[in-house]
């Protein structure tokens, strides 16, 4: 599973991307996994996109998917 990190999440974790070996899971389960493996990040208000589409906590992620953690956006 390819995990992309942006803005402050990227700075806290220290890299823009993580490659993790995880089985099929939901977005909610991945968030829990991230929270327990990276306790210094806050995923409150963070959205998730799976393969470049916004996803819900119930969305299923396949091992080959690309998941992006998207903090509140501020373009424009």
């Amino acid at each position, binding site marked *: 599973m390819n995990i*992309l990190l*942006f*803005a*402050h999440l*990227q*700075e806290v974790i220290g890299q823009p991307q993580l490659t993790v070996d995880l089985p099929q899971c939901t977005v909610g389960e991945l968030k829990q996994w991230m929270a327990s493996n990276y306790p210094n990040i806050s995923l*409150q*208000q963070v*959205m998730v*996109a799976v393969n*470049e589409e*916004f*996803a*819900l*906590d119930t969305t299923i992620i396949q091992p080959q998917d690309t998941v*992006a953690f*998207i*903090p*509140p*956006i*501020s*373009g*424009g």
Partner: protein
Amino acid sequence: MFEITDKPIDVEQVRGKVVSRNAGAITVFIGTVREMTAGKKTLHLEYQAYTPMALKMFEQIAKEVQERWGDAQIAISHRIGHLAISDIAVVIAVSSPHRKTAYEANEYAIDRIKQIVPIWKKEHWEDGTEWIGDQLENIPYPTGMPSLNKED
């Protein structure tokens, strides 16, 4: 029609993308880097994007504009990287047969950019830095994601 670039944006080039013989109006919105925000002085900004998804979201905005104002054409360029005060961060050009549509669709597009396009801004102040979020104060999203239908 859509671009994320780390180079300065050429406003005239963005306008040129929506030129049409049927257009009686082109609105061009230019978003620039502001120095003072609520009494705090910005030294410079840094923008970051999830580029492939941002481009998809620009397409989504264009689709919404097409649905609402069928005769409008839209082009958007957003800059990322290091931006100085007064630099251009975003340019939105909308053409349409009539000016009201061109104004309305252009404002709609910038509102939607701030809702659904994954681009982040980091403020560099004299006394620190911060990634800015939630400009429209519509976080947390009740459904877990920004609405892809503005009326929701």
